């Protein structure tokens, strides 16, 4: 059994057809998985099922061999929108997962600052979310999801609202942080190049099912140039073509 296992998962929203149909998926520790698919194919629902935010109608989710009934404290989740609390400063937003339980200690305060530094927004520490740009808000949301050093991270199109250049910077920042802590990641995106650049595996979802799962054989240390080498582009093309196959 893998680090995270989805075993024949089914889910449907009340009054609708099946959103997720018989998905079986195994994720090993430290792996970075991307989930690609068109809008409405059930990606977000699958992510919520994997994180324990939704309970499957049929099938089971196991995390380190134990059945998941609700989100674990070892899990970090980043939503499509940054979901920051406008009445708290950037630093307080980052520390929220801890401050909900108790007063953060000096070690945690230091780690919060380290995360902001790694994300390149330490100068925004005392500002409020409404004073930040979309990219900066996404960075705060990622820092918040990492403050408790989760062993598993779920990200739902976290860079959807940022421009292409900022998006590339954020991708590198995220990879750096996840590799540093060997975090296992499931990342949802619409962008094929983003999926190939970030992940070890790219899963294609269509009609509520995972229809393909590609291995990405690129060195762990990613670089800007990789986006332009032949293997990278061939893989992107292969994934794109498999999409055409899915839609036909």
């Amino acid at each position, binding site marked *: 059994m893998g680090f995270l296992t989805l075993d024949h998962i089914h889910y449907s929203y009340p009054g609708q057809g099946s959103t997720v149909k018989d998905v079986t998926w195994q994720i090993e520790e430290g792996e970075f998985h991307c989930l690609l698919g068109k809008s409405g194919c059930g990606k977000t629902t699958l992510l919520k099922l994997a994180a324990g*935010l939704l309970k499957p109608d049929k099938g089971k989710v196991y995390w380190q061999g134990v059945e998941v009934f*609700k989100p674990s404290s070892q899990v970090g*989740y980043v*939503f499509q929108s940054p979901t920051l*609390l406008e009445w708290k400063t950037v630093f307080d937003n980052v520390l929220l997962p801890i401050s*909900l339980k108790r007063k953060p200690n000096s070690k945690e305060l230091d780690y919060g600052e380290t995360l902001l530094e790694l994300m390149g927004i330490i100068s925004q520490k005392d500002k*409020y979310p409404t*004073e930040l740009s979309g990219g900066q808000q996404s960075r705060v949301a990622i820092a918040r999801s990492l403050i408790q050093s989760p062993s598993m991270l779920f990200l739902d199109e976290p860079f959807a609202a940022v421009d292409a250049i900022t998006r590339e910077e954020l991708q590198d920042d995220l990879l750096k942080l996840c590799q540093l802590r060997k975090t296992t990641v499931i990342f949802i995106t619409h962008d094929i190049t983003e999926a190939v650049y970030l992940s070890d595996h790219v899963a294609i979802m269509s009609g509520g099912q995972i229809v393909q799962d590609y291995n990405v054989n690129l060195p762990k240390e990613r670089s800007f140039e990789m986006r332009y080498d032949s293997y990278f582009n061939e893989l992107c093309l292969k994934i794109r073509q498999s999409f055409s196959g899915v839609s036909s």
Partner: protein
Amino acid sequence: MKKVEYYSMLLMLLMLIGWELIARPMSELVLPSPGVVFIELWKGVSSGYFLPHILRTITEIVLGLSIGCTMGFILGVLMGEIDFLRRLIFPYVIASQAVPKLALAPLFILWFGFGMTSKVVITALICFFPLLENTLTAIQYTDPNKKDLFYILGATRLQTLIHLKIPAGLPAILAGFRVSVILAVVGAVVGEFIGGSEGLGALIIASQGMMDTPLMFSVLILLTIMGMLLYLGVNLIEGLFLKTYMKGRNK
């Protein structure tokens, strides 16, 4: 002072001149001129004649507003949090609001007497609904992603309420408070119209009986000033609470 503020002052001056011109050929009983009204106002203020009435009306407004808003907020939170409670009592709350509350004023005077209590009850009842409605909506429609976030973080229901739903709903709750403040003045004054010997509303009725139109106008000016000060107070409170929500958006 900005250009628009000059124009605003100029507009006021023009209105006063217009008032003076219209009032000049008319009887003081129908429309007293601004000069007569301001002399009456100054006499009343300097002699201390208005003071007990102003204090009475302010006390009724503050008490009614505090009681009505507190009840509205508490019930709004409870109904927003407890689905069963909302479905159980919401039709009755709507029914109670469908009755024109000012039409209930004679009944409250019958029940609570001619003293301050009846006016405070009327004011509280009028202030209650905007706060209830806005609080309920704010609590119910908290961003589902933020609720999911708190669920993932293992927050209890009370923590989610205190750290998410109430602060997130604060702009809507304060918008309800703004409406309540305006209605509170109406509630207190109308209550005094119907039965009372003290307060600015009672003074308007008394001036009508005495056919003292300049006095009536002076009281109306006092009520306008009072309403504007209350509105200013609400703006200050909003600015204080919503400062962080608006940062960056004001640029």
